[in-house]
C-alpha cells in the first residue's frame, strides 16, 4: 500500500479527538470500524494507521474517556468494542469548542493575509 498523493497523515494531537467524535456519533465500534469511519468521513483523505490507532485507544481507556467490551461482530468474530463514557463526552464537547475557537482564529489570520 503505497502512499498516494491524496492521502494525509493525521496531524498530531487530533487523532484522539477524531476517535472521540467518531465514537460520539455511533454507539459502539471496534478498532477497524473506527479507522474505516474516519477514512470514509474524511472522504478518503485521513488514513489511521493501526500503529497509532491502538496506542491512542489505550490512552483514552486509561484516561477513562472511553470504555471497552468484548463482543461478537455480525460475522461472529470476537472484537473489542469501544464506546464513549460520560467523562469522554464532556471532554469531547470541551475540546470541540476549543477546536472551533482556534480554527476560527486561524481562519481569520489566514484570511487577513
Amino acid at each position: 500500500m503505497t502512499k498516494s498523493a491524496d492521502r494525509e497523515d493525521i496531524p498530531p494531537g487530533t487523532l484522539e479527538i477524531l476517535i472521540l467524535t467518531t465514537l460520539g456519533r455511533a454507539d459502539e465500534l471496534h478498532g477497524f470500524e473506527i479507522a474505516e469511519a474516519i477514512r470514509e468521513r474524511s472522504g478518503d483523505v485521513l488514513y489511521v494507521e493501526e500503529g497509532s490507532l491502538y496506542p491512542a485507544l489505550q490512552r483514552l481507556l486509561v484516561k477513562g474517556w472511553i470504555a471497552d467490551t468484548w463482543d461478537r461482530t455480525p460475522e461472529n468474530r470476537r472484537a473489542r468494542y469501544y464506546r464513549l463514557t460520560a467523562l469522554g463526552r464532556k471532554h469531547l464537547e470541551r475540546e470541540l469548542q476549543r477546536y472551533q475557537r482556534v480554527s476560527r482564529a486561524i481562519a481569520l489570520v489566514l484570511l487577513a493575509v
Partner: protein
Amino acid sequence: MTLGGLWRRLRFTIGRRRFDADLDDEMRLHLELRAERLRRAGVAGVEADRATRRQFGSVTLALERSRDAGTFASLGTLRQDVRYALRTLRTTPGFTLGAVLVLMLGIGANTMMFSLVNATMLRPLPLPDPDRLMTVWTTRVEDPSVFGITSLPNYRDWQARNHVFEDIALFDSAGRGYNLTSHGEPEQVPGVRVTATFFPVLGVQPMLGRTFLAEEEEPGRDRVVVLSYGLWVRRYAADAAIVGRTIRVDGEPYTVVGVMPPDFFFQFWSLPRQLWVPAGWTRGDRERNSNSFLSIARLKRGATVADARSEMDVIGRALAAEHPTTNAGLTVRVMPIAEYVRQSVRMPLFALLGVVGFVLLIACVNVANLMLARGATRGREFAVRRALGAGRRRLVAQLLMESVVLGSMGGACGLVLALLSSRLLGAMLPGDAMLVPMRSLDAIGVDTTVLLFTLGVSVMSGVLFGLAPALSACRQDVSHPMKLDARSLSGGRGRLRFGLLACEVALTLVVLAGAGVMIVSVARLLGVEPGLDPHNVLVMQMSLPQENLYYGPPAHPRFCANLDDRVGAVPGVVSVSAIAHLPLSGAGAGRAVTIEGRPDPGLKRQAGAAYSVVCPNVLRTFGIALLAGREFTERDTLEAPGVVLVNEALAKRSWPNEGAVGKRLKLGPFNSPEPWLTVVGVFRNARLNALDVDVRPTVFRPYNQAAWPTMSIVTKTATAPAAFAPMVKRALADIEPNQPVSGVRTMEEVVDHSVGGRRLSMQILTGFAVLALVLAVVGIAGVVAYSVAQRTSEIGIRIALGAQAVDVMRLVLGESISWSLLGVGAGVVASLGLLRFLRGMLYAVSPTDPTVLVAVSVLLVVVSVAASYVPARRAIQVDPVSALRRDDS
C-alpha cells in the same frame, strides 16, 4: 494523575498478560478485516495478504506502544530488570552464593537484634488501649528521677482527688510464692495481691467467672483467687467447674472466682504471676509510710499525660503538706506504661542494634568488592550495550536491580537464620536481663514489623553495596573496553576497591573495640570480690505466710531453730541459715535509719539503709567476716531486747570514730514510734545487691523479731552442694509440711546469673565481632587477590626486568598495608566517637579504653597482613613469560 487513572493504569499493568493477548486478538481482527476490504476492492488474494503482511512490523510496534500507553512503563522495565538480574546471577553461581552468604549473616544478625528490640520495646503492649495506661510513682520533689512505691492511704487520696484517671489500681510490688496444697502435689506458685480495680484498669476480662469485688479487698472477705490460664490448664486440668470451688492457698480455703484468658500476661518487677488474690489490707498496709505497692492507672478518654502529670503533682504536694511526717519532700510522678517498659530494659538493645548495623555495613563492603571485581569482567558487556544505545541511567538502574535482587535473596536467607536463632536467643536469655514489665519472653519472633524491617534493610543494603560498583561500571569510556582487556584499566577502580578495604578495616575496628571493652568489663565484674563466699552454698526459697506481711511478728517462731535442728543435722552440712533477700539476686528492701542521740536531720536528709531479715549463723554460712560483736542467736526473740547487725559501711557512717556494738538505732524517721534497737555485731562489707552496685549501708534484723514472708534458706555444705538438695528438701518438708520450696540453686549459679544481662550483651557483641573479623579477612584477601590478578602482567614485567621476590612482596603487601593502616586510623577515630553509647553497659572500664583500642588495632593490622600474604605469595610465583603472553592473546 487522578486516582481513577492510577487505578486503571495499575489494572492494565497487573493484568499484563491478558492485556497482551487481547491486543493481539484485536490486531489480528484488524488485519483480517483490512485484507478482506482490499480483496473486495479487487486486489488479488496473494497481493492483499502481502500488503497486509507488510504492515506487520508496525503491528509489533503498535503492540509495544499500546502497551506502554496503558501501563507504567517503568514497572514493566522493572519486571524485565528483575528477570535479567536473576538470569545474570545464575550465570555466576560462585559469586552469587558468596554474596548471598555474606548478606545472610549480616541481615540475619540485624533481623535477630531487631526482633529483640521489637519484642521488648516497639510492639504495643498486649492490653486494650495501652496508650492510656500510666504508671504512678511516689517521687522526690528534689530528685524526680526516683521511681518510688506507695502506700494504701496515699493511694486512697490519689483515687479520691484526681479527675484525670478512670481509675487507679494498686498491687504488691514484690508479689510472692503462694503454696497450693489441694488438687495435687504441693507447689509454690508466683502470685500477687491486687486491688479490685486492678483488672478493670488493665482493661482485661476474665475468661471464666469474674474478677474481684471492692469489698473483697477487706480481710475476711478476701479468701478468693483468680487463676492464670496456664495454671488453670496445668494444675486444674482446664476444668471449667473449678470456678466456685475451693482450693487450698497457704493452707487456707480460697474460692476460685475467675480464670484469665490465655493471652493475659502479667509481670512487673518479678516473674510472670500465675494467680491473683485481693489485697486483704493488713494493719501494716494501712500506715501511710508503709510503702510496698506499685500503682497503675488508666487515663480518662481525652485526658493527656500532661494533664495527669500536673494534677498528680498538685495532689502529691498537697499530701506532703498534710502529712509532713511521712510525705515531706515527696510528690507523684506519672509515666506512660510503654515509656516505663522501654526505660526498664536492662540490655542496651539500641547500642547492640547499632553494632550489628556495623556488621551489616562490613558485609555490604564485602559484597561491593565482589561486585566491583565482577563489574570489571563485565566491562565489555556494558560497553557493547552502551554502544547499542542503552542509556547510562538505564544501565545503572539495571545493575542496582541486580544488587537489590541479591540483597533480597540475602535478606530472605537472613530471615530464616533469624527465625532459627531467635529461638536460641530466647533460650539463652537470662531471666532478669529481660525482665521487662508486661512483656512476655516468648514473644520474640517475626511479625510484620520485623518483616518490613528486614525487607527495608535488604533493599537498602542492595542499593548501598550496588551503587558504587554500578556507577563505576558505567563511568568508563565506551570504546576502550571493546578494544582492551578489562585488566588493563584498573587504576581508578583499584583505588575504589582499596578505599572499600580501608572502610572495612575501620568498621571492623569499631566492632572489635566494642566487643573488647565489653569483655574487659565482664571480666572485671566477675573479678569483683563480692565479700561473701558462694562456694559450696545451696539456696532455695520458701514462703512463710504471716498476717503482718513485712513487719513481723513471725507466724513461724520455731523456723530458724528448726532449720538448725533438722537441716543442720544432715551429714555434710556445715551450717544453715536463712535470709529474706538473697544476696546478688536483685531482691532488696530499704528502711529509714535514725541514730540514737543525734539531732533530727529533717525528712529531706533522712538517712536510709538496705534492710533484710536473717536467721542465726547467716554470716558464717555466707562466709561474711564478723568484725565485731556477735551474730544473732535463738535467744534474740520477741521477748528479748530488739537487736540489729550492721555492716562496716553503716557503722562507719553512723559512728565514725567509735565502736558500733552496743549503740542504738531505730528503723524509721526521727519522730517515728519505732523501738530502739541495739547493734550486736558489725560485719564486713559485702556486695549483697549486685556485683556492680557499690556496697550500701546495711541493717539485718533477726527473723524472730521482725519476720519476712519469704525466706531464702542457705546451706553451706562440705562438698558439691547440688547433691544435698534432696536431703535438705526432705528435712524442710518435715519442718513445714505445707510450704513447698522453689528456686533451688547453688550460690555460684546465683552469682553467675547476676551478671547475666551484661554477659549476654558481651557474648552477643563478641559473636558479632568474630563475624566482623571473618568478613574483614575474606574481604581483604579478596581485594588483594583481585589486585594481584589484575596486575599479573605488570608483575610479570617487573620480574622479567629483574625484580626479586622481596620487591614484589613489598609492592603487593605495601599497598594493602598502607590502606589497612588508613582504615585502622579511621576506625580508632570512629571508635572514640561512637563507643560512648556503650557506656551504660560497662563496668569499671572506659568505652574508649586505650589498651583495648591499641590491642584491637594491632590485631587488625596483623590480620590484614596475614590476609594479604596468601594472595601476595601468588604474585611472586608469577611466571613472567606466561604473564606477558596472556595479555597478548
